[in-house]
């Protein structure tokens, strides 16, 4: 039985601390450097980037690889990242070029096949309705045309790439936790097929790694960042990032490098376990973890042991994240100072949008209904009044309430100047003290997230290492 594998996280999102890769490699011993670059919104951001610049991967990853590649190569540290985004093959090529330029020989592995866009027409024809998990609508019913569509892939192809000798593995849309499951499975020789056929030991090991992956996927959030009891946390100006020491049975110790800021306690780990989850069954393409079985124990300074996690069967269908262009939006926020906040808001709304505050309240969250009552020629109108509620305000901040008005339409012009100009024109003729928090801006495009699923048989994942196909098939 091998010793635990030390898997470090160096990124919780596209835009996280650039120096973190170097910190995790330089500040202590690790076996694998991983990071998550892909939040739900990121795929949309990368699509915009692809349309502008021609590539759809997270370029900051290359900067980080350049900083750590020499050390990782010397010390045998593998790098596993989903920074490939919409273009894992292009990122693989870019890493290869970078390594060649640096004169460091590396074998680059690429996991691809998550992108369903090239096969969208075929999939729709074959009967995939891509039913929205929240609303139950099919894509066709909503008249939505996706601009991104990526199936969430698990850890198995990452393990395949590492087994085939990849020093660096880049992927597209794999689950955040797959970045830990894959390396742990490779290190300990876990058998995914056995887990699928009901081998409990193997399933529980994978479930343990899934939990470990979930805990470290959001960077410093496991080490006291974004933590309710932040006043207890030392060195939070610059917390260390988390490391998962995953044992052969899937049990894990979460820790961080010695001498770094932040802390790892049962509290910081619990906070992250609960982040962005639903019920106790936490699904991943490889396995589902039963969160009701997790046991946490503080076993030392900045060391929390996670054990007891048991597996449930993996879901039959793969989750898919789609985005389509919803249209254009614009917002302006008016400041309402001092007395008569509601009357001021009411006058502003009647002047700008032809609706009363009462009508806004009656409409609740129904922005389409509110737009229908409004004189604005827009599809959706949303109004939020934040009343400071402070009597006898001594300081300016106490005296200021805010009226935020947001409009959306498929036509950019209707939410551009057609929306902002009448609002600005009213500033000398409406309620006393009227001004917006920012100058009026142009309409901006917005995406709509479409969570759905796909039949596993309709997805084919490819694993290439050093340009050669080493595995291919249904995930």
């Amino acid at each position, binding site marked *: 039985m091998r010793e635990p594998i030390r898997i470090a996280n160096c990124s919780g999102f596209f835009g996280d601390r650039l120096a973190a890769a170097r910190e995790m490699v330089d500040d202590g011993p690790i076996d694998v450097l991983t990071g998550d670059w892909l939040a739900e919104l990121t795929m949309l951001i990368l699509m915009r980037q692809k349309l502008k610049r021609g590539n759809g991967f997270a370029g900051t990853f290359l900067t980080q690889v350049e900083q750590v590649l020499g050390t990782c190569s010397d010390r045998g540290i593998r790098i596993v990242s989903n920074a490939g985004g919409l273009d894992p093959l292009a990122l693989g090529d870019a890493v290869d070029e970078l390594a060649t330029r640096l004169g460091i020989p590396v074998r680059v592995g690429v996991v691809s096949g998550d992108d369903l866009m090239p096969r969208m027409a075929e999939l729709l024809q074959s009967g995939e309705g891509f039913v929205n998990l929240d609303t139950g609508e099919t894509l066709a019913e909503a008249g939505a045309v996706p601009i991104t569509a990526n199936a969430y892939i698990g850890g198995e192809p990452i393990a395949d790439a590492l087994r085939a000798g990849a020093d660096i593995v880049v992927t597209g849309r794999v689950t955040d936790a797959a970045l830990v499951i894959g390396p742990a499975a490779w290190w300990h020789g876990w058998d995914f097929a056995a887990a699928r056929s009901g081998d409990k030991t193997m399933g529980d090991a994978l479930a343990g790694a899934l939990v470990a992956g979930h805990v470290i996927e959001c960077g410093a959030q496991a080490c006291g960042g974004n933590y309710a009891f932040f006043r207890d946390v030392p060195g939070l100006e610059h917390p260390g990032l988390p490391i998962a020491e995953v044992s052969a049975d899937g049990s894990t110790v979460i820790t961080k490098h010695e001498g770094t800021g932040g802390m790892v*306690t049962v*509290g910081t780990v619990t906070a992250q376990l609960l982040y962005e989850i639903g019920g106790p069954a936490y699904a991943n393409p490889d396995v589902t973890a039963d969160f009701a079985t997790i046991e946490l124990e503080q076993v030392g300074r900045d060391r929390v042991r996670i054990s007891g996690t048991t597996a449930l069967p993996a879901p039959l269908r793969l989750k898919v994240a789609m985005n389509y262009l919803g249209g254009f939006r614009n917002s302006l926020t008016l400041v309402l100072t001092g007395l008569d906040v509601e009357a001021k808001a009411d006058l502003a709304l009647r002047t700008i949008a032809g609706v009363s505050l009462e009508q806004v309240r009656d409409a609740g969250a129904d922005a389409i209904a509110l737009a229908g009552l409004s004189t604005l020629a827009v599809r959706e109108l949303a109004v939020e009044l934040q009343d400071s509620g402070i009597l006898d305000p001594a300081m300016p901040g106490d005296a200021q309430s805010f009226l935020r008005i947001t409009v959306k339409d498929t036509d950019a012009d209707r939410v551009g100047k057609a929306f902002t100009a009448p609002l600005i024109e009213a500033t000398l003729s409406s309620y006393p003290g009227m001004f917006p928090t920012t100058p009026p801006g142009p309409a901006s495009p917005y995406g709509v997230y479409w969570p759905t699923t796909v039949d596993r048989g309709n997805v084919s994942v490819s694993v290439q290492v050093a340009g050669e196909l080493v595995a291919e098939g249904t995930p």
Partner: protein
Amino acid sequence: MTTVRLPLGTFIGARSGDKGGDANVGVWVIDPAESAAVQLAHGQDADLTVTSQAAALADARYAWLSALLTVDGVRDLLPEARGLRIEVHPLANLRAVNIVIHGILGRGVAETTRVDPQAKGLGEHLRARIVDIPTDLITGSSA
């Protein structure tokens, strides 16, 4: 039973986030070994052994929290969630409760008009709500 009006966050942690148009708020009771763990993190000596008394206090706090955070309880504490579908999942092993509020973020972070489009602050909002807390659950906290 005497009670005292204090913010929920007095001994309850929370972290919130988004999943598409839904938000979740994970809420937990401070672990009995937490104060020792914090002392260790500050480089001080501390004993991680949990006394039966400390464990019993955490259990009592969790029982109280679970009774408070029913679907209706969540609607009272977060009026913003009224009219939305709410799920409450107890996780007794973590002395935690996970709340899922469906549709509070419209169709996701890029589409929603909410000021806090990813519900990052929802957990801290919940912790700021003032509730009647049994005095026993507070006084025990200094034990």
